[in-house]
């Protein structure tokens, strides 16, 4: 039996999502078709849209289904850029997921963060009338840092800029209220909250008109083309609404486990990275050890964890996010991310506690 401590990468499919998925897979009909089969598919799709919108404080017309969080991020940034060429600047924080951080390739400017991973307020001044969108991740996928978006929304709206937030790790872990948060664009993903892989959504505030980033039949309000997957959408909606419903009980339960993982990390000689306010993520470095080796040894001991950073062909490099927080290369290169979710229990933490100190000791003994 394996101990799964990588829920931030993907979390097991929950029962309601599974039931919905299996049931809907049987159904026939393209939701864009005009015949009766198509109408029934359309009905299920719209019911899913309404259910999801309701769970996250959005209007149904503000939900654009995508293939996942990364596509939602890409659509938010590219769609904003294409929609308002007269505002050429993009601002992103230094602690974004790769799907947003990738915008650096076409000139996105980076807002610096402090040692905890919070975006520094000094960046507010960079928001001027030529900025089209500011993107700040709501809950950091690597460290679990939670950002206060209010000052950014206020400043951006004063300058006509839009605010996008990647809320993939926020859903089910902190309260998510699209309208209340005041942002213009919000990315969500199903499989981090017990939904299926392959679907996510971009919430687009009424009045914000994005340009499509892909070609096709102009489904999803003309912004995201491609035949919608009714089965995935309905399973996503079920998982998301359950996660939101259970948040009040689940967040404190996970926070309790998180705190115990922090204790285990400290016993093993680890140093926490970032503020990590979210209830489900612990990121820590183990100076003198190396992430790759720690993961291999944990893997051998039956524990699934992550280095939390991008992998290129299986080769992990020190995380750009941790480096941006001011960590040295060696320190960042010894980081691990443990993330928990709905199926995590005290037994998981106990098994980590039994294994981690020896694993760290062994990797350190390798000497580098």
């Amino acid at each position, binding site marked *: 039996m394996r101990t799964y401590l990588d829920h931030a990468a993907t979390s097991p499919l929950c029962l309601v999502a599974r039931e919905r998925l299996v049931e809907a897979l049987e159904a026939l009909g393209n939701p864009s078709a005009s015949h009766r089969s198509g109408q029934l598919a359309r009905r299920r799709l719209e019911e899913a849209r309404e259910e999801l919108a309701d769970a996250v404080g959005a209007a149904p017309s503000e939900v654009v289904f995508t293939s996942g969080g990364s596509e939602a991020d890409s659509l938010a940034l590219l769609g904003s850029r294409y929609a308002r060429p007269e505002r050429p600047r993009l601002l992103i924080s230094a602690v974004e997921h790769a799907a947003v951080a990738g915008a650096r390739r076409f000139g996105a400017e980076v807002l610096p963060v402090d040692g905890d991973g919070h975006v520094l307020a000094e960046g507010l001044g960079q928001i001027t009338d030529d900025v089209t969108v500011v993107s700040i991740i709501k809950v950091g996928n690597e460290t679990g840092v939670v950002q206060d978006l209010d000052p950014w929304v206020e400043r951006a709206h004063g300058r006509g800029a839009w605010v996008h937030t990647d809320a993939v790790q926020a859903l089910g872990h902190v309260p998510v209220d699209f309208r209340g948060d005041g942002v213009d664009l919000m990315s969500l993903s199903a499989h981090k909250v017990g939904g299926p892989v392959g679907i996510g959504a971009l919430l687009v505030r009424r009045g914000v008109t994005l340009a499509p980033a892909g070609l096709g039949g102009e489904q999803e309000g003309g912004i995201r083309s491609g035949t919608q997957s009714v089965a995935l959408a309905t399973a996503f909606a079920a998982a998301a609404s359950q996660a939101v419903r259970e948040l009040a009980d689940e967040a404190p339960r996970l926070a309790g486990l998180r705190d115990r993982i922090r204790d285990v990390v400290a016993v093993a000689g680890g140093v926490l990275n970032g503020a990590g306010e979210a209830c489900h993520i612990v990121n820590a470095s183990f100076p003198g050890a190396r992430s*790759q*080796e720690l993961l*291999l*040894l944990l*893997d*051998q001991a039956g524990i699934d964890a992550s280095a939390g950073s991008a992998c290129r*062909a*299986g*080769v*992990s*490099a020190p995380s750009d996010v941790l480096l941006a927080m001011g960590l040295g290369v060696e320190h960042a290169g010894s980081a691990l991310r443990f993330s928990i979710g709905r199926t995590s229990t005290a037994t998981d933490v106990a098994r980590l506690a039994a294994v981690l100190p020896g694993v760290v000791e*062994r*990797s350190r*003994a*390798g*000497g580098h």
Partner: protein
Amino acid sequence: MKVLAAMSGGVDSAVAAARLVQAGHDVTGVHLALDRNPRPFREGTRGCCSLEDAHDARRAADALDIPFYVWDFSERFQEEVVADFLDEYRAGRTPNPCLRCNERIKFAAVLERGLALGFDAVATGHYARLVERGGIVELHRAADPLKDQSYVLGVLNQQQLRHCLFPLADTPKPKVRAEAASLGLKVAAKPDSYDICFIPDGDTQGFLRDHLGKQDGPIVDEVGQRLGGHRGSYGFTVGQRKGLDLRVPAADGRPRYVLRIEPKDNAVIVGPREHLAVSELTGVRVTWTSEPLMAPTRCLVQYRAHGAALPGQVGVDGDRVSVSLDEATHGVAPGQTMVLYDETRVVGSATIEAAR
């Protein structure tokens, strides 16, 4: 045993890993990422470090149902192998980067990390035999001289050999491919790798030119008379005859060969073929597979990966070896590694410093 199987993505290392699994070992596959900017696809028979090769290795590990990881040794490879390769050419020598990689990366850095992580041995798909005798692990040639790779393993010491496994040993190549096919490994028909892995287009001269730049210098005869010019002495190897482009004919009208390279003057020295003949070699950076030779000993000496093994007398003088070949040979270049054999057994190795 807990074994770390180095998997290049080729058929040999895949079958080597498969045999260890079948023998009941606890096997973990590891692919070494050696190229800092790996190419997406493999090109023909060149190289072993494209992303496609990493993928092939991963799929072989999947077929064997063993854990698999990619280990990034690209920085270390760059420093210890590629930079050394360039330095050697810069100094007018002819290096063998595969030996260097075995010595510094595969059976050093990887082995050290493997041992530190609790593995007992590193396995590769080399064709060579290990024989344990009297508590010593001996390294022997594989039976098939065309496949034998003991030469590129000749730099390993006893400590390294004790933690090595070469499961292919003497197996004929067609049998390895057949075994791969019967195991359902997709690499069963994949072409073998040749050439230097970090020069994917096979153009060593172009690679050297790009990295060392043009270095104009003279081509001179043995008494120092200038016969022509060159754009970089790295473009020449000892024994080379073609491509000298000399305008001044030799007095006796006979062809001239590269005899040596003088890095001090960036000069290429040419002369008649008989002056290429050497029988006395001295070597530095000596390694021994077990005990060092104490007294002068008869050995077979091989100085190229697929060259002949020549009989001679080997003496040891401190940290050097000297070799007297029974019969003179041609085309020995400083920088090449000579591997010393007792019959089929590897005794040790040294880097050729001088030959006369």
